[in-house]
Every structure is written in structure tokens, then in C-alpha cells.
């Protein structure tokens, strides 16, 4: 199916294969590079699930471990196969997805075949799992030394009491020691079903040919997807403040406002856009509060805002470095209360909307960013390019209602990485 987005001057091709694999192609005229991403709706939060009548409670870090191990096939490592074509392959695991991608300027179809083959062909042995523990152990060590990451992990521990989003994506050296080939096979079976996955291509490719290759190199039958368990939900945060100490020159912090999960029929994309707009109105880098905190040297240019939607949860996140994170928190909470009560100034609302629209438009210049956004949208049954139309449906009242939820008691948590004494 072909869909035109005339305001954005884009045309998108989409198709769903018989096995359920969703494919989406955004042509980029004049681009040298083509980017393809094959992702599964399976991230670090999906550690507990039931599949084929059996319950699995897997060790922390299993989705990420699986990502590392997928590159290895019986006939060698997929990285080396990509190397022969000059493509740049990589992969990532987030809280909500695992994705494998490459970019190339030549031999796209050959690369696509390599991608599909290795992602759909699990090959795990005691020996190769053992070897990977060493590499991932080093990666975990690196993350342990990264203050921004530690603040991120701390924030989710503060916001949630039982939700698996509390656990660091890569797990710990102790948890990955319990991962076995059997665990990895079980996760692959439960979540690497074509109907739980999406393929997004951006650049210059032959869409029909790409679909043909995808049909040929993905499984004909799609096993049932595992049923996930996220624990019991609470409206309020788990801890108001989470603190840890590291070698940092001044405190780094993330402040989160716990929002309600998506309603059954709510658009995930619209919620994300609304959240992003709200958090920018609150304290985005062109907002009045940002200017005031910056002038008091309570925040710096590294200060950033975000809004995240996860299964059975959502949160606004703000943070950076500060000599006094508690003072930032107090000021931000006060502004949330004011905005919940008075609503956002209409002039501020409309200029921020313009700015956020401009930022999203620019995503379409970056195939990697676009493709990642599109995958997330596809998993929610949407298309990222609908952002322009959805934007028109967002009103000042929507934003005010969101602030009202953030302003309720015990909805914020502050994660701070303090300098070591």
C-alpha cells in the first residue's frame, strides 16, 4: 500500500506479509545511503512471560544478551558477512525493543538477506554463551562508570516498585551468569515471531524486491507471541528520591513525573507528542522556567527533557547537571502545579507546538532516527509520519490535563548521582 503525505512531501510504502511481518519503506530521493532495521517488540521489560503454557521468569539482561548472541550463526559471524559488502551493521536493546540494523550504499538486497537470516536463525551453545559473558561483563562495567546511565537506572527504580523497567537493560554480571542457551532459545521462540516484528527501510531500495526477500528469508509460520507480565501497578512513585555516589564533578540528576499508562484505545504516537510538548512547555530549553533556572546557574546547556511511553507506564523526564537538584525539583514542581491550575499561556503553547513540529520534521532527514521512530509506531499499529496530522488534534486543554496528572501527590521521583566524598 502506498500512502502520500503531501505536506511533508513524503510517500511511504507498507505491506504486511502472510506471516505477519510488517514492512515499511520511506524512499529518500538523492540519498546515497539506505538504512534497514529489523526489530522485535521485545525489550528488557519483557523478562517475565508465558509461552506455550509455561511461565518464564528470565534473568535480567536476557533481551540484550540475546541481541549480542544473534550475530553468531553456525556458518560464522554475521558482522563479518556484512563486512564483505561494506555495510555498517549494529544493534541495540532498549526497554521496549531489540533492533538489528545496517546502512549501506551498495548491495542492499544482499545485506537485507544477511540481516533476515541471522535474526531469524538462533544458534546458541554453552561455549559461545560463556564467551559472550566476558564481553557483556565489560559492557556492564562501562555502564557502571557512566553517570548519566546510573541516573537513568535510578530514576526508574524511583518511579516503579515492581515494573521490570526498574532493572538496567544489560542486567548485572550476576544475572547474566544465569543465562543459558535454553533461556535464549525460549526468548527467541516467544518473541522473534514475524508477527511480533517489523522491518523498516529508508533510502533507495526496490520495495517489491525487499518484500520478496523478506518473505523468502523469514519463517513461513509465526509462533504465538509470549504473554508478558509487568507486575502490579501503582499510581504513585516507589521512592521520592534515589541517590547514588560516583566520580562526578557535580551532581547529575533526572527528575521524572509518573504518568498514567495508555488508555485501551489511545494513540501511542499522540501521547508521545503530547508529552513531549508538555515537558517542553514546562522546562524545554526555550521556556521561561528554563531561562530562570539557567540564569540562577541551577541548570546548564546539557539540561534536556523527554517523555517516554512503556508498556503499562509513561513518564516525563527532565535532567542534567546541577549544583542543587533539589532546588530544580522544587521549581519544576511548582511550575507543574501552576500549569495544572492555570494552563499554559496560549502564545507559549502555539510557539512550542511550532517548534516541536519543526524538530519532528527534521527527523525525516535522518534515516536512522526516522526508522527507529517508525518501528515504535508500527508496534503500536501507527505510522510515525502521522505526527503532523496528530499535532493538529492537540489542544491547550490536553496539555493542562496532563499537567494535572503530574501535579498529583507522590507522582515525581528524583534520581541523583552525587560526587563521591
Amino acid at each position: 500500500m502506498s500512502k502520500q503525505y503531501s505536506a511533508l512531501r513524503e510517500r511511504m510504502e507498507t505491506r504486511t506479509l502472510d506471516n505477519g511481518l510488517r514492512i515499511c519503506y520511506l524512499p529518500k530521493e538523492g540519498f546515497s545511503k539506505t538504512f534497514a532495521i529489523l526489530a522485535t517488540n521485545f525489550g528488557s521489560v519483557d523478562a517475565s512471560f508465558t509461552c506455550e503454557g509455561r511461565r518464564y521468569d528470565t534473568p535480567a539482561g536476557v533481551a540484550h544478551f540475546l541481541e549480542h548472541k544473534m550475530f553468531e550463526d553456525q556458518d560464522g559471524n554475521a558482522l563479518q558477512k556484512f563486512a564483505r559488502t561494506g555495510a555498517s551493521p549494529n544493534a541495540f536493546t532498549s526497554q521496549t525493543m531489540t533492533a538489528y540494523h545496517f546502512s549501506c550504499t551498495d548491495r542492499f538486497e544482499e545485506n537485507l538477506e544477511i540481516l533476515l537470516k541471522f535474526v531469524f536463525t538462533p544458534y546458541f551453545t554453552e561455549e559461545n554463551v560463556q564467551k559472550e559473558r566476558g564481553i557483556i561483563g565489560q559492557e556492564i562495567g562501562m555502564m557502571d562508570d557512566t553517570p548519566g546511565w546510573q541516573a537513568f537506572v535510578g530514576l526508574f527504580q524511583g518511579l516503579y516498585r515492581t515494573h521490570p523497567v526498574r532493572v538496567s537493560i544489560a542486567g548485572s554480571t550476576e544475572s547474566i551468569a544465569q543465562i543459558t542457551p535454553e533461556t535464549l532459545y525460549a526468548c527467541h521462540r516467544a518473541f522473534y515471531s514475524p508477527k511480533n516484528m517489523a522491518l523498516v527501510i529508508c533510502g533507495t531500495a526496490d520495495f517489491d524486491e525487499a518484500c520478496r526477500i523478506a518473505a523468502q528469508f523469514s519463517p513461513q509460520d509465526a509462533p504465538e507471541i509470549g504473554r508478558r507480565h509487568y507486575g502490579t501497578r501503582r499510581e504513585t512513585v516507589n521512592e521520592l528520591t534515589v541517590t547514588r555516589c560516583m566520580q562526578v564533578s557535580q551532581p547529575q540528576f533526572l527528575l521524572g513525573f509518573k504518568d498514567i499508562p495508555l488508555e485501551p484505545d489511545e494513540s501511542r504516537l499522540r501521547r508521545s507528542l503530547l508529552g513531549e510538548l508538555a515537558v517542553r512547555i514546562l522546562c524545554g530549553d526555550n521556556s521561561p522556567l528554563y531561562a530562570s533556572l539557567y540564569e540562577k546557574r541551577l541548570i546548564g546547556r546539557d539540561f534536556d527533557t523527554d517523555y517516554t511511553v512503556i508498556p503499562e507506564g509513561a513518564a516525563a523526564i527532565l535532567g542534567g547537571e546541577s549544583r542543587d537538584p533539589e532546588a530544580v525539583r522544587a521549581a519544576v514542581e511548582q511550575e507543574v502545579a501552576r500549569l495544572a491550575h492555570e494552563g499554559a499561556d496560549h502564545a507559549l503553547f502555539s510557539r512550542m507546538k511550532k517548534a516541536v513540529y519543526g524538530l519532528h520534521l527534521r527527523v525525516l532527514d535522518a534515516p536512522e532516527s526516522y526508522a527507529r521512530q517508525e518501528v515504535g509506531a508500527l508496534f503500536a499499529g501507527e505510522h510515525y509520519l502521522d505526527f503532523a496530522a496528530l499535532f493538529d488534534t492537540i489542544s491547550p486543554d490536553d496539555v493542562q490535563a496532563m499537567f494535572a496528572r503530574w501535579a498529583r501527590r507522590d507522582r515525581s521521583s528524583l534520581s541523583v548521582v552525587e560526587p563521591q566524598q
Partner: protein
Amino acid sequence: MQQVTRKKLGAGVNLTCVTTPKFKRAVLRAALLLPLGGPDAALRACLPQVLRRGTAQLPDLRALGTTLDELYGARIEAIVRKEGETLVIGFLSDCIDEAYAPGAAGLTGRVVRLLADLMFDPYLQDGVFCPDYTTGERDNLIDRIAAQKNDPRTWAPKRLTELMCAQEAYGQPALGTAEQAGRITENKLYTAYLRALEEAQVELFYCGTLAPEAVAHLFLDTPLARRTERPFYLPHTTVAAQPAGDAREVVEEEPVTQGKLSLGFRTGGSCLTGGDPAAYWMFQTIYGGSTSSKLFVNVREKHSLCYYASAQFIASKGIMQVNSGIENRDFATARDEILRQLDACRQGDITEPELESARKTLVTNWRAMLDDPLALERYWLGQAAAGTLTAPEDRIQQTEAVTLGQVVAAAQATTLDMVYFMKGAAQ
């Protein structure tokens, strides 16, 4: 498809335009090129941050922020960069292309005028920079200098550069030192500002749909292009082909979990403007520039010594670094393995598939850069700072022609200068 034009707009003022209909955004840069280091280093690093606080017309962050939002979220960021032994300070901006929003006609021109105002018409009090902005940004700079150590993965290579090039301008930090920063006052800063405007080479950049003449016209309308004839800084970088003496080894302890091992090499003179950079990029890619490189395959995959081990050719200065994160106990093993892989390259132990795969990877990378306006900005600034105008397309052609013999020669010309180990004291 991409047309690159370079035009002199005034004395020491150059405009580079990449004209392409590919993107929905335009990228612009206005920057001053000055010598790296020296007593004004911290003042110069502080300058763009103070200028970014307000103009005579838009005197504070609120006014600036409102204007940027109205320009569909145009971004203007202060930049402080090191290109070889040249310091680059100024502003980088990206905004949507005028064609993509109603009422956005003239948007590029407005961004150009804003860049010019930030640079030439700052918010002043009593004829100098505003004391509040100066002290605020002075303290922010001191914080930023201290914060460089927060992430060991980026700090270790910086520290290696400082130590290895201590006797060269390149060893000077772009941000200056905390001591220098502590002495910043609004008067000193304003004097340094006037001096920088006098002395700098000005590099302007635009990537987008507008024709080069139209862009030149936009800039010529502003003080950015108006300068009288006078001597100005001509960017240059001294390249040492060999280390000054024997290889040095420095171990420092930091309270981090994972040790960081960084090795610094001299390239035998290969750099942007000399030696055989095309062959050197090939060698660097085979050695440690991709997931099929010798370092990745051996140090990471075969010996599981690290999560990352990669080589980087810093062509602007003619040096190469290998960076990795390891357990303390693996220091000697990892160092020896990294050097063993270099020896393999020197001895010509490079297979045809390794050579061709590196060639393809490099060609892919150069081509992919043509799709990224921010990467193009960075690329052309690097060329300007090196005083060369080699297009990415030329780099592709040169890469296609590199032989195994040239790669081996590049490896053989490589000499270890320093081993730096940041020992994890928290292990």
C-alpha cells in the same frame, strides 16, 4: 547532485555552500578560527557562551527562545572545537527548510541575521559584556572543564592527547584551564572578543536548497562578511612524523570500575594535507575501524578482553589512537595484543577480503556522509582548518586506488608514542 561552492566574501571571510534539495532542513555555521591554546584560551572558550545569552535586540534567553520557537524550533548552539591546532568558536544552527511550513518564507535570512547579531551585536552593559552573563558563563566553563572527567570513556583519549602532545599546541585543551577561566572578567572578555574578531579567519557554511548566490547575498547583508583588509590568522597545524623519543607509558588511578587503555601513535606524517591519508584510513580501518577489524575480531571477539577496542586516525593532526575498556588485570595482555595486531599489519598479514572489506566500509562511510548535513558541516570545517579543499567524492576515488603495499607502508610508518592506562581504582 551535491554542488559545493566556496566563495570569499571579505578579508579572511569564506563561505562554503553545499547546495542540495535532499534535506528538509538547512544547516548554517558562523565561526571564528583562531590559534589553539595560549593565554586567551579560556576567554575564547567562554566567548560563544556569553554571546549566546543575548543580543542588543534580544537581550536574554527568553527573548532568544521565543524567536527560535517562532522560527519552527531553529536551533543555535555555541560551538568550541579543536580542528588540528586551530580553535573554532562560533555558532552552529539548523532550521527547517522554508518550503515545509506555511509562513516560513524568509526563515533562512532571519536565521543568518540572528547569527550575525549574536556574533557582532551582543547585549552589552556600559560598553562591555553584561557582568551577570560573564560570571554565569565563567562558572559554567569552570564546571565544564571539571566535568570532562565524568565519563572515563571520553576522558581517557583526551588525557592521552594532553600527555602525548604536551609539548605541542595540540596538547592544549580547547576549553582552556580552570585557573585561566577563574580570572575571566567582563572587561577582559570584551577585549578578547574584539581581538578575536580582528584576528580570526571567519568560516561560514550553509547546506540546503538555496542557491549559493542567494546565500552569499544573505551573509553579505550582515557584518559577518564586512571586514577590511588586514592580516588575520591562517590556520596551520604542525605534524610530527615520529615521536620525540622512546615510547612512554603512563598509568593513572581513577575511582572507576573499568580500566581504560589508550595508545597514541605517530603516523609517519600522514595527515589531511601530507603523507598518504587515503592509505592511512585504509590501514586504520583494517586495524581497528570496523567490526571486522583486527582489534575487534581478536581483542574483543577472540580474547573477550573488552567490549570495545577501536583505532582512530586523527587526520587533522597526524596521529592515531587506540582506545579500549578493560579489566585492570588484563592491562599487559590487552596492550600486547593491540601491538601484536599492529605488527601483523606491518608484516603484511592482511588478507584480500580484509583489504576489500575495509575499502568498502570506507567508501560507504564517505558516501553516507553526503546524506548528513551536520557531518558535511564538520567535514568542510576540517578542510578549511587544514587549508585544503578535498571533497568527499575525491576521498572515495583515492580510497578506490589504495594498494596493499600502501597500507603496509602506512602501518610500517606508524610508531608508538605513548601508552596511557587509566587504572580503575574501584575494581
